[in-house]
């Protein structure tokens, strides 16, 4: 019985993230547009784009290799699996133990690895620009992310997301300096990882400023659709990661009833809306920065996270 419920929860979760992801992206876009006093695209625009892209033919460069063609599927799959393992509305996921937080980050890393390779495959200058900048950003963002994981794991005594969420739900952890630092660092990382302003501009096609867009420049049709979807999933993943680690309230605990799950879903959607609003505000508030200042931006994140970890190491007692 429990197994079936958990399995169904897991399946629902996978569907939910898949469906909600483009919605979140669209929501952020339209809110940004509103903030800029434009009407902006309708909320469903991303879905339409995906469908249209899927219908179109794929135009491959002459020297595109098998890697170029298989990469989108791998990227999408890795991201989707990662997103499926982050508790969104319920902690009782059947396969949550298959991969802990570190593994989830590594899955995203795998997606990025192949994306960067795909960017270099055709052998154009812009692909190279995108890939090299992407790996630079990643090589600062990943350690920061790992440090954040350390902080959580030291507080909770586990790198298992559902355990983390459950722990933060059950006991009253209270306000922790290190957790606060971790939140800030996580936000910085999330902004960078999802190619948002100020690190990258998802809307730009001005060559010299692109990072993510430059890598996918050669993609078209269904491949592009998959990559866009993966990007949206990634954004959603980070939002729900922040949600489940730092505002876990409303998550349906493992073995909870149907009602709790429904409530969880609703609360989750609210969380998404809030996050979207905040992100849009943030993005409109500040300007894009030069690529080489990203190092400092993320370095700050890394330092914050390291500080958080050190605090925990030094302050004994509450470590699990």
């Amino acid at each position: 019985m429990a197994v079936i419920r958990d399995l169904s929860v897991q399946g629902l979760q996978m569907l939910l993230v898949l469906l909600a992801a483009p919605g979140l992206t669209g929501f952020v876009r339209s809110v940004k547009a509103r903030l800029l006093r434009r009407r902006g695209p309708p909320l469903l625009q991303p879905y339409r784009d995906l469908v249209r892209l899927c219908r179109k033919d794929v135009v491959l460069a002459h020297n595109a290799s098998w890697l170029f063609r298989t990469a989108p599927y791998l990227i999408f799959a890795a991201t989707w699996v990662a997103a499926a393992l982050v508790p969104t509305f319920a902690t009782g996921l059947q396969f949550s133990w298959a991969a802990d937080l570190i593994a989830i980050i590594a899955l995203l890393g795998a997606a990025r690895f192949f994306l960067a390779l795909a960017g270099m495959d055709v052998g154009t200058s812009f692909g190279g620009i995108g890939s090299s900048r992407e790996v630079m950003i990643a090589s600062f963002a990943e350690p920061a992310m790992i440090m954040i994981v350390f902080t959580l794991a030291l507080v909770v005594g586990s790198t298992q997301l559902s355990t983390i969420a459950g722990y933060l739900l059950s006991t009253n952890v209270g306000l922790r300096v290190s957790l606060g630092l971790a939140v800030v660092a996580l936000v910085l990382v999330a902004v960078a990882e999802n190619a948002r302003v100020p690190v990258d501009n998802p809307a730009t096609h001005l060559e010299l400023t692109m990072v993510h867009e430059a890598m996918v420049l050669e993609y078209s049709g269904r491949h592009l659709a998959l990559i866009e979807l993966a990007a949206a999933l990634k954004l959603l993943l980070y939002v729900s990661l922040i949600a489940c680690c730092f505002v876990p309230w409303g998550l349906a605990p493992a073995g909870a009833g149907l009602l709790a799950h429904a409530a969880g879903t609703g609360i989750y959607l609210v969380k998404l809306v809030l996050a979207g609003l905040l992100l849009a505000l943030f993005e409109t508030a500040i300007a894009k920065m030069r690529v080489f200042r990203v190092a400092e931006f993320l370095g700050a994140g890394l330092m914050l996270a390291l500080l958080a970890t050190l605090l925990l190491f030094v302050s004994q007692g509450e470590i699990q």
Partner: protein
Amino acid sequence: MMLSIALSCPAALLALAVVAVAAARWRGASRAIYGVSLGISALALVAALTFLLQISPPAQIVLPIGLPWLGAHFRLDALSAVFLIVVNLGGAVASLYGVGYGEHEEEPGRVLPFYPAFLAGMSLVVLADDAFTFLVAWEFMSLSSWALVMARSRDPQNARAGFVYLTMAVFGALCLLLAFGLLAGPSGGYAFDAIRGATHSPLLSGLVLGLAILGAGSKAGLVPLHVWLPLAHPAAPSHVSALMSGVMTKVAIYGFVRIVFDLLGPPAWWWGAAVLALGGGTAVMGVLYALMQNDLKRLLAYSTVENVGVVFIGLGLALAFKAQNLGWAAALAATAALLHVFNHSLFKSLLFFGSGAVLSATGERDMDKLGGLIGRMPKTAFAFLVGATAISALPPLNGFVSEWLTFQSILMSPRLDPWALKLIAPAVGAMLALSAALVGACFVKAFGVTFLGRPRSPAAERARETDGFSLAAMFLLAGLCVAAGVFPGVVMDALAPAVDAIVGARMPVQAAAGWLSIVPIAEARSSYNGLLVALFIAASASLAAYAIHRLASRATRRAPAWDCGFPDPSPATQYTASSFAQPIRRALGTAVFRASEQVDMPAPGDMRPARHTATLHDPVWEALYAPIQRVISYAADRLNGLQFLTIRLYLSLVFAALVGLLLVLAIWL
């Protein structure tokens, strides 16, 4: 029984080496010799595996050679069995590769005799059970590999590599000699059993630890003792590079583990701190060096330095935990280290094989002259890609597992009391994370520039797929990488006896955990399941593919690259290795390597091309080795004057000596 088999294999290899001296000039000798060494290594591999899997008690044997009153002690226990597996697995696969690759050798006489000797030396180090035999095997290993490095000695670069290599090797061996001298004491109890039996004062143990770090670390490539490694590994023929990088460094690690964990007795906590700090520094420095390289094999060599650092992080944690009597944590850390040893031996050999295939297909090691090989050597490209993914610690491959375990053991470190460790451990964790991310960047660069894009030189255009044996070797390793990544629990359980032998504790049996997942301590705490992750990825990828191809278009058109509307036919417009590394070079390199870029932009109307040059400084060499060189040559020059004195002055030397000694007597008495 297994020990005698394992011993007879190196003996047979030595015999083979002697035969090879004579046989080298025959046609087909290379195939024969590589084939035979393949068989022998496989036999030794089987012996070691059986020994390890049917948990056998340590076996000992004393041969009447070596020091007359000592004899040559040999011992096969779990630890040496693990490393014997690493050595002979690497040896077997390298021999398989060599069967094909050896055909390209222009002077087989310079390679064939030393190759089996090298294999034999490594196996003997792992089996040795007294200081003398250990050092003999150790030096023999260095010597034979030196001969292999000198195989292409007409290139002065290689000659320099050989010089630096053997000098560093002898330095390390002398350090180990001193360490053993301390351990054995003036009475000369060189047998490891005697050393284990003796008790050592803390000061002495600390000294031995330092000497062991110098001795084994210089062979394993710990920064700052790594300088020989990026010179020597690329200089050798590729299958030998694979052995040196993938296997010989592991033998060095074995030496360290054997001395510090086994012979030296209970550790003090600061040992862990020292080793941990060294490991962290090595990991970051190694990968930074690697990122700056344009030479494929050199990049791989530097990434070996990085991985050695990761292993030493695990070992340092194990030492610290052991010192604090946290057996289970120590077991976790030690398992992580040993697993990474095994994994690295797999994918580093694979990557060197790939680079060797590229080298023999194009004659190029410089990545800026390669590119687009994925079209011409798809199989090699695929194998190399698997290796690159594995070494970048990406799930579901094996590299990730050992890295993950290392992270898990770092997460245990708050339980350590000493403050130094409390501060070092998280910092090292950050270093490990940083190096993990940088490795990803490094291998995106390696694979992307070498295999993707468009060919940057005619050689790269004319490249063609390498021979079947080499491919077989590569795919074998790739398969092992996947298997070890998907079923890590099996490997970890196999490692358990060795771990038990060195830290006196073992991890929970992984086979007990459901669904083939691995659980370091408790499932609520952390767990990882390579199999499921792999299945999920495969399933969702194929699901997506299926869905899209069913519901949406599957049509595909070929067209010229889009490139924002202004495609340039010249491959020179692609990102090169150095330009790919530029962002990271600016972000990190300026601090570490004093990296600087000069742009020489001709004035308008000036026809000469614009030039962009990036200069790097090797901090370690300039800070440590160059001064030593200078001092020695200065002293040599000064003293050299004594060769050119007059007889009278020589006489006055004698006179001075006489008067001096008489004065000593006069004062003494």
